[in-house]
């Protein structure tokens, strides 16, 4: 689901740290906005950017986001159901035993789209950022130590295998006659039964990779050279300024139109 897609696109060519900076700013602004318009616009912008500027095929992107559409909808739904049961003033919508105020609707919809916006931003970053470039960028631009940088890379390498390990553990235990997630007790104990073998696999893997890295000279005192380098060029700065400029303009327009609020007090 969260795996880098190898190809050439405008977003693929951008420096990972610049992309992270844009995402960080957008995340903060979306999180403080309690009105649904900005989260909806952010989601649409992130989706369009990943599709068009990232060159990720539409069906591929939709397939990856499907589960998050469902999660966001469930959040919105459960939030609206719970809030609909409260008797409040200023009811604007009635349905059977549910009564919603404007605040209830805004809160529910904002939450759902905030989740979608953040997931789409993260998805766009992962799909268009080569793991090696991210590590090199951490080392070369953020001055993270080489040892920590490559340890991050090794972990990144192991993550896609994690689900395969969980599936094989689940299967192996089921064949031993231990049903998986069936019954109330099993639902609580299943994760613990996976935990032990999974931790052992991860620890062993970590130990071997650490040996491999040290035996190939990682962490030596001599100056290290880099076969590939990541740089922040003019285009990266243009991307940063234009992205943040457009986003700032949208926020200003929304504020002018009264569609950007920091708190519920402001809505009222």
């Amino acid at each position, binding site marked *: 689901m969260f795996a880098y897609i190898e190809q050439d696109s405008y977003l693929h060519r951008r420096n990972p740290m610049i992309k992270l900076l844009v995402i960080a700013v957008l995340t903060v602004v979306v999180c403080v906005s309690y009105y649904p318009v900005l989260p909806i616009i952010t989601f649409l912008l992130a989706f369009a950017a990943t599709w068009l500027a990232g060159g990720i095929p539409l069906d591929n992107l939709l397939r990856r986001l499907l589960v998050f559409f469902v999660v966001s909808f469930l959040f919105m739904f459960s939030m609206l159901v719970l809030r609909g049961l409260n008797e409040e003033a200023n009811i604007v919508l009635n349905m059977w035993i549910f009564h919603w105020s404007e605040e209830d609707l805004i809160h529910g919809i904002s939450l759902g789209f905030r989740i979608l916006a953040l997931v789409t931003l993260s998805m766009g970053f992962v799909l268009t950022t080569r793991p090696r470039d991210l590590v090199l960028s951490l080392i070369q631009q953020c001055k993270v130590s080489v040892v920590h940088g490559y340890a991050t890379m090794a972990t990144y390498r192991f993550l896609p295998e994690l689900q395969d390990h969980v599936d094989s553990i689940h*299967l192996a235990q089921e064949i031993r006659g231990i049903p998986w997630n069936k019954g109330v007790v099993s639902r609580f104990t299943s994760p613990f039964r996976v935990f032990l073998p999974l931790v052992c696999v991860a620890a062993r893997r970590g130990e071997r990779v650490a040996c491999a890295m040290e035996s190939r000279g990682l962490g030596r005192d001599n100056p290290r*050279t880099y076969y590939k380098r990541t740089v922040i060029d003019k285009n990266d700065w243009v991307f940063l300024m234009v992205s943040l400029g457009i986003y700032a303009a949208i926020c200003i327009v929304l504020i002018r139109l009264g569609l950007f609020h920091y708190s519920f007090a402001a809505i009222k």
Partner: protein
Amino acid sequence: MYDNIIELKDLKYIYEGETLPVWEHLSCSFLKNKVNAVIGPSGCGKSSILSAINGLIPHVMLGNLEGQVILDGVDVTAVPPVVRCERTGLVMQNPDSQFCTFTVEEELAFGMENLGVPVEEMGTRIKEVLKYIDMEGMEETNLNNLSGGQKQKVAIASVLVTKPEVLLLDEPTANLDTENRKMILELIARLAEEEGFTIIIVEHNIADMLEHVSRMIVLDADGNVVLEENTENLSRDELASKGIIAEHLEDYMCLDTDSKDKEPIVELSNVSYAYPIPGRKRVKGKTIINDLSLTINRGDFMAITGDNGVGKTTLMKLIFCICKADKGQIKLYGKDIYDYKVQDLYHQMGLVFQNPENQFATNSVYDEMNFSFKRVNIDEEEKNSRIEEMLQRFHLEDYKERSPFVLSQGQKRRLSVACMLLTQQKILFLDEPTFGQDYENRQELMKDMQKLVEDGVTIVMITHDMDLVKQYATRVVRIENGCVKEDSLCLPT
């Protein structure tokens, strides 16, 4: 007269947390610019010798090391591996454990970057080494998309590019099929003859490359050197008679299958199956099992062979109802498998996975075995007696209080088999039972399986280890393009 490049002097090493040393008073030497082979039974400390030469022992794998490691006349015992890597390069048994990056090019550059090799030179060395290992133009290839043999080649190449004097190879062909094994042994022979590397190889059977080996060091089970000799002084027959090398096994004799007198247990008739396309459960992709028919009879010691991706593991998943066949019928004891309750089905058949650790769920060998009885209604006395019997049968009596996760590879495999047999399954399926196992463990496991067959258990193993097939299987089924290409009875050698 040959020169020695490495000398181990009176080495004694105890792993942290252990009480017994791996070896005591270990002294031996290795020839410069020659192939040196280290041979010995499982657990005798062969791989630890490579770690001591490389410096991982005692600097990364912590423990107490006494004695000296001499490299070209200089005591390097106190030198850490990050410095020793300029002169020694280690290739591990499983290349996946050694890879730190994502693509071939990145992996090859990693060691050179650490050593501070100039960028222009790195590009030249990468091109040269890829040409040398016949993988030109594969710089950008993702490591996960390589075959087992190609991965091992890249692992060797990633060390070669740093131009060490000594190449340390830890069972580099242990997890490879016959063809890939041949490819890697040829590469090692070329490195020794054309490039003049000093090679120290730990390998369970060096019969295939004996002519390239100049010095042989043989250890006994306690880690004592029982033979240290230049091979020019040893004849092949002498080595074979001492059991130091195993000669090639003759191909198994194929006979037509005649199952008239046998009792069928599992019957697959015209079974087809295709996996759904990811994310689209109802849309099927390429057909993996294609109109396959096969009968497994009582008492078979069957080997299912075939190249990667032909459908061997999928076949097992179908038999165990993990996947449901799109077409055809699968019967167990004459009854459709889909008419069995899953729990009843798993009481009839056991499956041992590639990685035994995946099936462990508790923290002691005894609890692990007891765990198999979780859904079985039998009294405590019967449970204990069955556990004791299995502990004895699989030589695990002394380890019943130990955590399954800290057992040796061979013991883990035996425990996983024992757990599967506790509820008296009469059919046992093994998925790549020799994966990650050294030679001794493979032989021991197969002998245990042979005894089970004598006791009336039917064994079906998926494997690419043709030596094992030739030695033990009584029936070989070769799968190709999702159907049975060959089904032969055979006489084990």
